[in-house]
């Protein structure tokens, strides 16, 4: 309990530096802090549990490999973590573009079971279906905004300007609204 409280009060960078000095508990605390958010981002970007797990594994292995050399510059650890995840997603989508089409998981598989009302579950499945129809850059921009990132942070993660982020968000919401209104 005391150890958990000790790590809970530390920043992400402190935990990563502690892990770089050999404290495995620091990495565990850091992983527990960001594992679900990153996995959701990857799952909603890739729409497949198996692929999301594989990409998440690659992301965290990258974090482990770069822990000793990580230096805080202009981005926080969370932004750096999601940038790695986003790059892995792009790489996977590029590799899978030349492969035969793989069936995506249903929307029911992407939402936690038995935790939503029937009405909310129906609406969210419609929203996620509309998001799947969006271009990848608009979808990822929308998902990152829902994860709590600001436009500036999204621009750092995706490597585009803030105005581009704003326009992507605007196009993504407009297209999603049209799809929901039409009931497609």
């Amino acid at each position, binding site marked *: 309990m005391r150890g958990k409280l000790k790590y809970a009060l530390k920043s992400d960078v402190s935990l990563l530096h502690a892990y770089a000095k050999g404290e495995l508990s620091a990495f*565990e605390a850091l992983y527990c802090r960001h594992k*679900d958010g990153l*996995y*959701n981002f990857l799952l909603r970007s890739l729409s497949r549990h198996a692929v999301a797990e594989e990409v998440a594994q690659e992301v965290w292995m990258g974090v482990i490999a770069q*822990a000793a050399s990580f230096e805080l510059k202009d981005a926080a650890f969370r932004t750096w973590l999601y940038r790695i995840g986003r790059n892995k997603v792009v790489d996977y989508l590029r590799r899978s573009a030349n492969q035969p089409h793989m069936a995506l998981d249903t929307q029911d598989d992407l939402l*936690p079971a038995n935790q*939503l009302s029937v009405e909310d579950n129906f609406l969210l499945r419609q929203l996620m279906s509309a998001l799947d129809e969006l271009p990848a850059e608009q979808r990822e921009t929308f998902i990152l905004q829902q994860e709590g990132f600001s436009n500036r942070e999204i621009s750092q993660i995706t490597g585009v300007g803030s105005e581009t982020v704003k326009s992507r968000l605007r196009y993504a919401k407009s297209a999603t609204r049209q799809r929901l209104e039409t009931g497609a």
Partner: protein
Amino acid sequence: MTELVKKYRAAPRQRSPERLDNLILSKAAHERPVQRPANSLFSPWKALAVSFSVAGLGVALLLRNGVPPLNGIAESEVADLSRDRMVAMNSTSDAVSASAEESVFRHRDDSAQKSAGAVTVPDAKQESGLQMSEQIAAPQPGLVTLDETTTTASDSTLVLPAPVAVESATVPESIPLEETDTLAQVTELSDIAAMADSASGSATAAGNENKLADNISRLQGSREIKERRSGIAAKAGTEADQSSKAASPPVTGLPTTASKQLSRSESADRFSGAVANNWLLGQSDNRFTLQLATADDVDYLIQFGATLNMPPPWYVVRLKTDQSDSFVLLSGLFETFEAATLHIEKLAPAARQFKPWVRNFGVLKGELVTP
């Protein structure tokens, strides 16, 4: 749309699979980075800091325990240093005696206070040790030490059962003893045997002869005593014929009732004057002795020597110093300086209270005041 986005954001998230968590954490433990290298700013100063720390600890230990003894110095060098120190201290003994004169009077008994002499100590720091009258060990009348030739640290002492009652009426007064030579040996029981042999024909000494014979018979087991007795007995026999003086009671180096009752002039004659001078001049220049005390009053010095629990020979001689002459109490014969030094530790506390000096007979002969 806004409501839908809020529901989307508030919707419970899909939890990371447990198998993924275990896999990543196991890989994190396996790929755990090693300890980071030391701070590069501290590395260049690390050796210097360690050196200063070790040096500081060494200085602290020296300050706490003091400078270690000089074990590496050869014994000969130590002996030379001690001799130099002894000579230097002896040259300044007169100056010290003047300052110590007042303290001497405080520690003398009433009879000694009447005399004009003053006891000097080898070291001015030892003035407090002049309280010898309070610290002198109690006399042991039954102890007599046999050895006159060479006393070393391992000299053996023989305890005789009963001292000769020198004050008794049976003292062989007819035993002639020459003051000059005989007194040098009269302090030993072997001399008593010689006196008994030489006085065997004297009718007046018949009573005491039996006692002496008893004492001698108890010493038959000692080969050294036998040899000594045979040598001195012949000498004493001739002296007995030549001497016309009345036989003086045998005086041992230890105080007895008889020796205490001797007059001051008699005791002074036995342990000082020509007797002591002859004894000193007869020793080899390479031998050593111990100078136990110094005083201007020979009587006091002799009484002081009689109260000490030390084996003979011990004598009082007069030595010449820069300012004035002084009487010194000498005790023991040693072949080497080291043996004399070791013997100091075996002396009685009363004899060591004035910090005895190791004196060389060659040096003493040069300082001896002859009449």
